[in-house]
């Protein structure tokens, strides 16, 4: 599930960026397995030639798990064909890409429920629970 760029460059041209990147991912997987150390690669910082980003995406493919996040616009987080290698794409409310990363990790941080959000949600649930209590009692006591 990816948002394709609407305008395609007509000249696909390999500048050889994909292979070294794959090598880097392999080494990152080593670090993940040996030291439990995650790695994040910011794809925006790399000078891809036209067609190379698509080539990378196709090479990594799609695996078992896909998630869609809706916060300040959509984000697409999916595990690639290679477990531990995640493709994370952030979009803003206008549908434009604001970040593209490859995360080599057991699970991208953003998938986890965050403490602040859990705390806020708990407060909301408690409020809703407490507020609905007397009404229920009223109903029961009818």
């Amino acid at each position, binding site marked *: 599930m990816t948002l394709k760029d609407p305008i395609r*460059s007509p000249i696909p041209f390999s500048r050889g960026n994909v292979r070294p990147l794959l090598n880097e991912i392999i080494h990152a997987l080593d670090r993940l397995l040996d030291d439990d150390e995650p790695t994040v690669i910011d794809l925006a910082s790399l*000078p891809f030639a036209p067609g190379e980003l698509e080539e990378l995406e196709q090479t990594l493919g799609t695996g078992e798990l896909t998630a869609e996040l809706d916060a*300040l616009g959509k984000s697409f987080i999916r595990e690639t064909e290679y477990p531990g290698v995640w493709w994370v794409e*952030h979009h*803003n409310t206008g549908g*434009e*890409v604001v*970040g593209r990363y490859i995360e080599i990790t057991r699970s991208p941080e*953003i998938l986890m429920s965050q403490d*602040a959000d859990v705390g806020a949600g708990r407060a909301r649930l408690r409020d809703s629970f407490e507020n609905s209590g007397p009404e229920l009692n009223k109903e029961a006591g009818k």
Partner: protein
Amino acid sequence: MKTIPTLGDILQAQGVSRRGFMKYCAATASLLALPPAMVPRIAQALEQARRPSVIWLSFQECTGCTESLTRSSSPTLEGLIFDSISLDYHHTLQAASGDAAEAARHAAMEENMGQYLVLVDGSIPMGNPGFSTIAGISNYDMLMETVEGAAAVVAIGSCAAFGGIPGANPNPTGAVSVQDLVKDKPVVNVPGCPPIPMVITAVLAQFLTFGQLPELDIHGRPVAFFGQTIHDRCYRRPFYEQGKFAETFDDEGARKGWCLFKLGCKGPITYNACATVKWNAGTSFPIESGHPCLGCSEPGFWDKGGFYAPLSTGNFGSGGKLAGAAVAGVALGAAAAVAGRRRQAKYTKEA
């Protein structure tokens, strides 16, 4: 001075989740060309950052820089305005006009004395103040008055940074740049015609996140985006090294995407982020689209001898002057020969 809410306060008040905030921080890190490992630090800084007041002054400009900024995707300009900065004055984007607008500007200056950012696009005419005025105030007066209480000034676009097209030969309005006039405040130049939108917002994001201005090069440009030449990051560089060049705009070489040096590309002497960051959310940049780099982020790029004149051509002056030099040479030679002949005759006679 009124208390300014932190960005954390604002986002929380707007119901933005922690995940949303994390996305925002990741996007900001990407924007500032910082490694992903810096994201936690950015998150910490942003939570405590206060929303700065921003006054945007437009002088002799084509509004292209504002147009570029409204195409910025990360963060969106609307998001930028409402979430991160308080854009208190901007001709094109503000609802107010006339006296009301000027009053808003003065109010923002007074309330945020010493803390607001001044953004400038367009050059300032010094030839005659009447060349460009706003509400009857000359550009020069408005600039000097507004920067008095500013924390920093950002010159956006090549006109504000270096004089731009109004400043090009013969410069009929006496156009000068912001840094020519503002000497006692930090000035950051974000040149380009227009600048890459992301770069504009990155400078603002840097100020917002870390409360300081980015590291600058000798022309006052953020090194993060203007530290490398286009040539050094261009994906067509292998063709340059192999000697494969496009000769005309639609020949075989051009269609194969070969180097555009012979068509006048100024990539080797142009410092900008076009080759990596690109335009339209990373879609393409001029060279990728088949046009040589104009060098638009460099001072005086309009007067560098022509967009389609290759960088290694000389300017030998008119043929007439060279012919004149030739004639002078021949004359000197003839004179020397005459003297030489006289000497020869003398020696032959003596012998």
